[in-house]
């Protein structure tokens, strides 16, 4: 897994609440058996018109957001289906950080497994970021995972919380299956005393 320590990137706003994983990657694209090939279908029904041409009215298609790697969105981002295809699509499209005031549990877990940081900030700061993004073309944020700080170039700085273990795994780019397998003795011991079900 790609590790994550610091990241500075262009910010794109998506000012909607409850963006579900069906929107992030619609079901017709879930039939692939690979982990790749989802980026081009990110937000497909919003980003593309019926027929497949880009929808000029969808905010991510605006030239000023081309190459964005940080997405700021409304609350409860990633709700709905557990499909990990959603973070795969976001990552392949180029996003490394998603900022919202809350994330659905499964989506948040899935991000951490894919080198992507779901970053939770209070509502007021998310609103401020959305506003600054819209007002300042080329608006960038810098995220420092070690220090748990996010900052822009025009005076905004905020701290954020992340669980120590997820932070550690993300910073080291660790395969957490490998970590669990280090405790094989404990697993075997559990299995020995486990009642037959």
């Amino acid at each position, binding site marked *: 897994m790609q590790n994550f320590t610091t990241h500075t990137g262009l910010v794109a706003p998506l000012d909607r609440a409850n963006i579900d994983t069906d929107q992030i990657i619609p079901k017709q694209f879930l*039939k692939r058996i690979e*982990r790749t090939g989802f980026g081009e279908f990110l937000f497909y029904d919003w980003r593309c018109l019926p027929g497949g041409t880009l929808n000029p009215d969808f905010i991510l298609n605006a030239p000023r957001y081309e190459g964005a790697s940080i997405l700021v969105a409304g609350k409860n981002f990633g709700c709905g289906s557990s499909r990990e295809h959603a973070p795969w699509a976001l990552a392949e499209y180029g996003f490394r950080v998603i900022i919202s005031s809350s994330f659905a549990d499964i989506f948040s877990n899935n991000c951490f497994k894919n080198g992507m940081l779901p970053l939770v900030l209070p509502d007021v700061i998310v609103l401020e970021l959305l506003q600054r993004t819209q007002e300042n073309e080329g608006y960038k944020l810098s995220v420092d995972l070690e220090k748990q700080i996010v900052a822009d170039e025009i005076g905004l700085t905020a701290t954020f919380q992340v669980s120590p273990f997820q932070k550690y795994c993300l910073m080291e780019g660790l395969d957490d299956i490998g970590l669990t397998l280090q405790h094989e003795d404990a*697993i075997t011991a559990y*299995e020995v005393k486990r009642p037959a079900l």
Partner: protein
Amino acid sequence: MPSLFEKLWQAHIVREETNEPTLLYIDLHLIHEVTSPQAFEGLRQAGRSVRRPDLTFGTADHNVPTTDRSLPIADVIAARQIDTLRKNCQDHGIQLFDINSPEQGIVHVIGPELGLTQPGMTIVCGDSHTSTHGAFGALAFGIGTSEVEHVLATQCLPQNKPRTMKVQTSNTLPSGVSAKDLALGIIGKIGTDGATGYVIEYAGEAVRNLTMEGRMTLCNMSIEAGARAGMIAPDETTFAYLKGRRFAPQGESWDTAVNSWRTLHSDEDARFDKVVQLDALQLEPFVTWGTSPGMVAPVTSHVPDPADAKTLADQQAAERALEYMALKPRTSIQDIHIDRAFIGSCTNARLEDLRAAARVVKGYHINSSVTALVVPGSHEVKRAAEQEGLDRVFSDAGFEWREPGCSMCLGMNPDILQPGERCASTSNRNFEGRQGRGGRTHLVSPMMAAAAAIKGHFTDVREWEFK
């Protein structure tokens, strides 16, 4: 002192360290064709094997066609996904209930039906509606594909401990108000992120009086409130459902199991991080009007006016939803006309659901402007329904009677809405485009969907004239 959740959590701890997630043992891992192929590929690349194929079971449900199964699958990419599941199960010695096996069905329907789902278990599946199995007093939750790989390799999952919420119900659901309405009522009350970070325990009279099918419907929708899992303490209803099922304990083991299952309840003085009270008598049949399951209104009411929303964000979300749904504020719910009806999904495709819908349908024909689909949750449900003649009731009324699968709940197979079509659906999600791009979904109970198919618009099933 401990809650039901706490008892299950404690019983499954493999390893616990400060500042690290707890390593939990998983008793049952269910897999399906859509979220497992990349997990097996990951195992192969890392040179790892499946630790407990005996605790892993597979079925194909998400993308399978619901029409004639003797024909080859027309969608070659879907077929490749099913073939991949078949090969992965063969390679790793995992029991698969394949597309044409008599046990095939929606993963959350067949788990309980086969008796694989049992009280006290930890159960995971790469599907958010795994919360369904909590109806048996199991700790069951949906996981992503990386976690599927983790469980395949280790039979464990590192988990941060969730908080606990109790939904305490009083009184019994009135006639015509179902478990689906109870679920929608709860989501409407606490919101689609109201339980994020929590495991919900459903308790109280209304829950005790539900059948296992009803309890599964209720727990199924927990994820629509954002919950990690939903659970209900097992009781005589649970034991009666499980007894004699294929994978349930038999003979002496059964008695031992039941004795142990009887301890699986929250103690009187158990503490919860949050408690929500709900009077079942206050509930009505519900219909969702928007693009999130929390956007819900009683059938006797009307589409809300976004201007009345509590926050600006809610107002904007409601405006956007009404635009997508092509609905005007203050429209009476019963004036909303439908084009399609879908009775199916892991929420509402069990025998009891089909019986409830058939009771409404009997003696009627669907409205000439409506096409309607019944998709049983499993072959077992389908066989049982056919034995009772429910297939004839539906067919005579103009419904299509299909083969089991997830079908139009998520529209991965050819069962989709066309742009602009409006559907009364017994499924669980009314997201934009969920049932097909541009499709408009209204979530309802099986009885309400059946009644809407017949009338051509939503109607209060409590006033239905049964024939």
